[in-house]
């Protein structure tokens, strides 16, 4: 498990990270969520030793992260690049050796990965001769070649075409399933929503929420219900204690007017509304609305 403990970092007077703590657990995809400039990239660079922290520590399985340990991590930086004039297979293999693999192991792993990422036919082309999408795949291969124990990917899906997204996803999920913790940052909430098991939300250098995705959704999302009745649902507007967010003929979405939700003061308001609706006529649906990450994000920061 990767543990980030009270990490702070400033650039000049600007405090980019402020006592940041969170965990990345084995076998799970952890989404690192935040607006541009929230401190995601700085945090990742600190984990990888590209930057130093002013305070705090990063540990891997209880040990402080050192250069030797980091050789077993895989990293894909946000601004991607490999050597433009080097052949694809050559440089992936070279990076494998840089991470401590033997030449033979690196070559075998490179071949396997290029196959997996549908890039085998371009193995002997110079990187600069590849399309941007294929360069991205090569970049993914470069971060995976040494079979890393921990994967850190900065915005891995930005700029990928839909086919590449699927390919990359499949590969990353496989790694997570094999037991490697995967930390990836994104500002595209919909992508993170589908992919991650755990979430870390950062804003202005501070962690606003972290933990299991569903638990966070429950904690930060406003509970809401959708009610679909046989006739017009406009009567809901006159029910005290709730706030109707939308009405469209027989369909309405509402939330509690109280900050404590529907169970405020020991009263089951949601159940009372359901009974009222059934008394008035046919009820076709009564469903809790799962909040989107987008909402949680706004709520959390």
């Amino acid at each position, binding site marked *: 498990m990767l543990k980030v403990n009270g990490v702070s970092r400033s650039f000049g007077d600007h405090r980019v990270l402020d006592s940041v703590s969170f965990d990345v657990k084995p076998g799970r995809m952890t989404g690192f969520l935040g607006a541009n400039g929230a401190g995601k990239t700085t945090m990742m*660079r600190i984990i*990888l*030793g*590209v*930057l*130093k922290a002013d305070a705090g520590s990063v540990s891997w399985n209880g040990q402080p992260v050192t*250069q*030797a*340990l*980091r*050789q*077993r*991590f895989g*990293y894909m*930086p946000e*601004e*991607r*690049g*490999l*050597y*433009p*004039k*080097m052949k694809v297979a*050559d440089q992936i293999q*070279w*990076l494998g*050796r*840089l*991470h*401590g*693999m033997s030449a033979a*192991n690196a070559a075998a792993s490179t071949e396997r990965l290029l196959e997996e990422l549908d890039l085998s036919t371009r193995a002997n082309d110079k990187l600069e001769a590849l399309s941007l999408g294929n360069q991205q795949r090569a970049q993914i291969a*470069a*971060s995976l070649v040494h*079979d890393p*124990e921990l994967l850190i990917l900065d915005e891995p899906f930005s700029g990928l075409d839909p086919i590449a997204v699927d390919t990359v996803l499949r590969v990353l999920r496989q790694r997570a399933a094999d037991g490697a913790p995967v930390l990836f940052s994104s500002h595209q909430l919909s992508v993170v929503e589908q992919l991650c098991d755990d979430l870390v939300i950062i804003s202005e250098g501070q962690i606003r929420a972290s933990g299991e995705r569903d638990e966070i959704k429950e904690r930060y999302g406003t509970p809401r219900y959708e009610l679909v009745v046989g006739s017009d649902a406009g009567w809901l507007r006159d029910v005290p204690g709730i706030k109707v967010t939308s009405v469209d003929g027989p369909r309405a979405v509402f939330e509690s007017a109280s900050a404590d939700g529907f169970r405020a003061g020991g009263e089951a308001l949601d159940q009372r509304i359901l009974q009222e609706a059934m008394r008035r006529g046919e009820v076709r649906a009564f469903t809790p609305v799962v909040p989107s990450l987008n909402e949680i994000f706004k709520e959390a920061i």
Partner: protein
Amino acid sequence: MTSVEERTSVESRNNDGGLSFVQATWLVAERELKAFLQMKGFWIGLATIVIGLFAASILPNVLGGGDTKIAVAGSDVAQTLEAGPFDIERTTDPAVAEELVRSETVAAAVVPDTTGQSATGVQVVALESPPSDLMASLGSPPPVDLLEPGEVSEGEKQLVIMVFALVFMLFAMSGTAIAQSTVTEKQTRVVEILVSTLPVKSLLAGKIVGHTMLTVGQVAVLAIAAPIALQAGGNEALLEVILPALGWYVPFLVLAFLLLASMWAVAGSLVSRQEDLGSTMGLVMMLVFGPYMAVIFLAGNATAMAVLSYVPFSAAIAMPVRLFTGEAQVWEPFVSLGLMAVMVVLITAVATRLYSGSLLQTGGKIKLSRAWSAASD
């Protein structure tokens, strides 16, 4: 069974402590070497220098191959020689003929024999070595009187200085490849992957080692090609005097390259784009062109050359030149090389700090003071 074996192999691999500094340095060096050896431009450049060397040695003979200018004192030999490819200057006085040789108006003079050992009654006077075609035309070889045996003529001296200075400049400038390679890594951000995997020092060391090996290799090729070229051009006499100097030139050239190598790397690490490289390479270029110009212009001034042969940057040209002209004492190159080695250590130490401090900073040109203080972060 297979899965158990696989797990064991993964664990055993993961248990090793990663690459050592030397291994990491060598991997970086290997990449730099390969990148160059796969470039056509590299081989074309080296071939051009070698061909140029041969051309400079052989062409004067071929082009000037019309008639060899000789002076003849004594008419009977002149008649036999007129049939051959000679441009003959007739005189009556052997002293005048000898003067023509000294002033390099003619390549050699044929004068009446004074040694009493000549079968044909003549002897040949030349500066360093008699023209072979003349010797052949005279039948049984006459006695030869060399006026400046083993001495270096002014023309040859100029040529050697030019060649030494030019080759120095070529190799010193080839260090720009280190700056370019550094800025490429910054520009493509591949540097983030490298720094997260390797110690920054091994990255710098690998670059220096790789490019130094390239230079040593090329210098070795030239050091072998030069004597062959001189031999092919029939310049055996020049070869004899140049060989010791050439032997010294090689270590001087390598140290000069090392002196500049880390500075080129800093020039590259201070900027983030190839286009901005010119602004930081200026100072290093001055350290290449300065010594080149100084040696060319001050070659005639023995005191100035003595000073230049100890200044670490110009020493690489000035000391071999002084060894060639016979001005330097035996111990002098050792002292000069020692000074250069000390400078290499000092400059590399400072450059390493500047390189570490600027490598990960982006955006425009980084000030040296900022690079220096950032290295302690």
